[in-house]
């Protein structure tokens, strides 16, 4: 690491990123043979220009172009996932401006615009799979690791909408909304088998089948099994005593499970089911567990079944109806030792019905009106905590109902000027909230778009934050919690320097009120959640993208974010600067493609100090030597950088070391 420090490498990358655009201007002439190629070939071609009329559906619950969507929407495609070799949803989202990821060797946490409090369970990002809410009804948790109920290879695209989204989505759409849109049966058109092996003995196999039948019905069935052994030995100096195995946790970083997805659609009707069961060993002795005890683990299981109907009624109306049933089961096995060795079981069992009804009207000239109703019946919200064969500390069943109404209008003031205005009222047993949103988008020039956005969002306290207590051992309840809310304002600018060069900037400010956070009560030394005073943040995200006629594509992104609490201190786990470079290029021919990702994350404040900034480089090569065979080799954390993520009060450690250099080899066959 002497001759080539990460910083120098970054410089090389930057020089390449800046110098490359001047090397090869985009071609003007029609590529030879293009008019003679077959249709299938055309559907797989990449573009030498950055298209402007890409449609997104997540910002407003209907299809609109990126330029008129009331947010700086980002898209990650299946092609990006293949090219850069992303293994989890979190790794994919990390490519976007303003997004970062942290991990405590139990779960992955998504940071957005400088906000990712340790000990929170991703409750401020709403995760959807094809529009179905995945955040559970106990902890409000979204998932970004192996616990997502969709295999990453089945994702067609991910839409990410940063900013306040409660005006359309209600609770949890606080910092942003992630919508995972899965592939259709026809995009597989047959059977696909995929297997991968990687560092830390990470195995994964998947079998999928997809088809579109002559009558237009589509079917997709897929199952995945994975077994990642993880780092076989992890050292924590906080536990470096002879009684605690000298601080070495052995064989406890495993990550195992299964996911399954089934989809069927016919005309306006569709039915979908997803499943994920994931067991993760806990090597960190979080929550005061016995260190290096092989029984420490969490098991998270998610199931959803959704029926949807989406059709036109008459000339001007569009109806969308969704009915879903979800189940979430969490079971944590935590070994303790007071006088004797005891296994404590922490359990959460959630089940809910969710329904949504939306009507969209296009009958008024220049208006698109949407009226919606959403309902969630939490039929089970059970939290239990007990010692195996011993006392029960918590047995708290609950049932609740929440609903919301929303109304929004897309008003084309001029052909180039669009006003999106909307509001939603939400009622929950723990507080009600009304949230407006205004988005003004102006295509000032053919090549330039400006957006002004204002909105608020809220998150109701969840039953975990309200009622969880383990009998006064570590945590106590606080039923008096009120909803937290956020107000945000944003200005976006997008400009096409050439048809192949896109520049984008987003400037934002947000203010959080009554933030729900975990604190320690000094009077009894118990952890509990309460409404803290608040926090605020501001920042900017800059992005430059260029495409070359010879297939090279480069995206350079820089983001600056400053998030602080009410006393002006920087928030925990909040990097001020992030720099991201993504380069992809064909190698010699189209059948071989290289994806290179370089990410820099600035230092972050931790409980006791600061964790260093770090530079992460990932390199992936995809080869399709035969039409039905694809092979990829990914190298992750190329420079073997030892970086750490801050963790919360439930850890004795201040920070947790992340994985070093690793690889993954993947083979996929289709027939």
């Amino acid at each position: 690491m002497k001759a080539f420090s990460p910083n120098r490498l970054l410089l090389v990358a930057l020089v390449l990123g800046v110098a490359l655009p001047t090397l090869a201007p985009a071609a003007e002439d029609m590529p030879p043979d293009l008019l003679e190629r077959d249709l299938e070939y055309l559907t797989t071609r990449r573009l030498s220009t950055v298209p402007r009329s890409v449609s997104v559906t997540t910002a407003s619950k209907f299809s609109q172009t990126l330029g008129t969507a009331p947010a700086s929407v980002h898209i990650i495609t299946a092609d990006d996932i293949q090219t850069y070799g992303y293994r989890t949803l979190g790794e994919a989202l990390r490519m976007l401006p303003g997004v970062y990821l942290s991990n405590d060797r139990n779960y992955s946490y998504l940071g957005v615009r400088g906000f990712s409090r340790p000990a929170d369970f991703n409750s401020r990002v709403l995760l959807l799979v094809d529009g179905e809410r995945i955040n559970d009804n106990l902890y409000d948790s979204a998932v970004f690791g192996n616990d997502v109920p969709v295999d990453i290879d089945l994702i067609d695209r991910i839409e990410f909408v940063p900013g306040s989204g409660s005006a359309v989505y209600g609770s949890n759409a606080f910092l942003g909304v992630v919508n995972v849109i899965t592939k259709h049966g026809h995009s597989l058109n047959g059977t696909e088998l995929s297997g991968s092996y990687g560092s830390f003995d990470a195995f994964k196999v998947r079998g999928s089948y997809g088809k579109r039948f002559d009558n237009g019905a589509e079917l997709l069935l897929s199952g995945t099994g994975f077994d990642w052994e993880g780092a076989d030995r992890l050292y924590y100096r906080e536990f470096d005593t002879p009684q605690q195995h000298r601080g070495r946790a052995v064989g406890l970083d495993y990550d195992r499970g299964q996911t399954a997805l089934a989809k069927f659609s016919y005309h306006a009707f569709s039915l979908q089911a997803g499943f994920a069961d994931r067991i993760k060993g806990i090597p960190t002795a979080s929550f005061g567990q016995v260190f290096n005890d092989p029984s420490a683990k969490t098991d998270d299981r998610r199931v959803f079944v959704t029926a949807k109907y989406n059709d036109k009624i008459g000339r001007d109306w569009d109806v969308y109806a969704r009915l879903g049933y979800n189940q979430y089961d969490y079971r944590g096995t935590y070994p303790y030792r007071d006088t004797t060795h005891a296994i404590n079981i922490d359990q959460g069992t959630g089940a809910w019905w969710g329904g949504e009804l939306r009507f969209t009207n296009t009958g008024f000239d220049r208006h698109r009106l949407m009226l919606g109703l959403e309902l969630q019946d939490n039929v089970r919200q059970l939290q239990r905590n007990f010692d195996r064969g011993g006392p029960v500390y918590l047995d708290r069943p609950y049932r609740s109902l929440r609903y919301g109404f929303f109304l929004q209008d897309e008003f084309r003031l001029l052909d180039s000027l669009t006003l999106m205005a909307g509001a939603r009222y939400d009622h929950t047993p723990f507080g009600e909230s009304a949230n407006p949103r205004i988005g003004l988008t102006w295509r000032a020039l053919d090549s330039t778009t400006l957006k002004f956005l204002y909105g608020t969002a809220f998150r109701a306290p969840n039953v975990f934050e309200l009622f969880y207590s383990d009998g006064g051992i570590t945590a106590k309840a606080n039923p008096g919690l009120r909803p937290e809310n956020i107000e945000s304002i944003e200005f976006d600018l997008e400009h096409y320097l050439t048809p192949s060069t896109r520049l984008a900037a987003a400037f934002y400010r947000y203010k959080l009120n009554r933030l729900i956070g975990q604190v320690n009560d000094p009077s009894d030394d118990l952890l509990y959640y309460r409404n803290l005073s608040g926090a605020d943040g501001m920042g900017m995200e800059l992005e430059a993208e260029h495409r070359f006629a010879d297939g090279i594509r480069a995206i350079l992104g820089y983001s600056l974010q400053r998030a602080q609490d009410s006393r002006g201190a920087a928030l925990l786990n909040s990097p001020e600067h992030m720099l991201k470079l993504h380069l992809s290029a064909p190698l010699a021919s189209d059948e071989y493609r290289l994806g290179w990702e370089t990410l820099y994350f600035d230092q972050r404040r931790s409980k006791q100090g600061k964790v260093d900034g770090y530079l992460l480089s990932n390199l992936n090569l995809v080869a399709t030597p035969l039409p039905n065979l694809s092979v990829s080799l990914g190298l992750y954390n190329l420079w073997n950088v030892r970086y750490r993520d801050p963790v919360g009060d439930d850890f004795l450690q201040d920070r947790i070391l992340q994985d070093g250099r690793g690889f993954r080899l993947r083979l996929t066959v289709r027939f």
Partner: protein
Amino acid sequence: MPRLPKILAALLGLLAFLACGSPAAVDATEEQLKVAFLHKFIQFTAWPQLPTDDFRICMLGEDSLHGNLNYLTNKRIFQLPVTVHYLVPADSVASCQVVYLNPPNRGALQRWRRFLANQPILTVSDDADAWDENVIIVFALEPNGIRFKANLTAARAAGLFLRSQMLELAREVR
């Protein structure tokens, strides 16, 4: 970390290769690829009756394909030479076999659609509202590629037949 310099050297070598090498395939612009698609759509469509002199492709609205339609001029489709027409007067739109719609707003699109309704004309568009307004083939832009959707009901109403080879590759068929 003794292996590191080797990896680095390999990587830099690779990048140098990327910067200097000349990969075989050339990527097309959005407009070029759309025209190539259009050319295929025509081949996979059957008209109830073909003209005798030329096969007419017409652009309604501002030319969003930036002149790339001209690449089809004088190509032969169903043994007929292709002609491309811009700024088509309303009374001669009926003589077009293919109409590419680029409306300035939804109101214009609705008027054009009413005007074209049930005529044996293949309508194609990339407008955001085109799918809702029953245009037969609608481009669905991806950040790095182009897909399309096909409205079979609208095609039947126009008396056109779309072949299954094309429908198989459509992202969505209605």
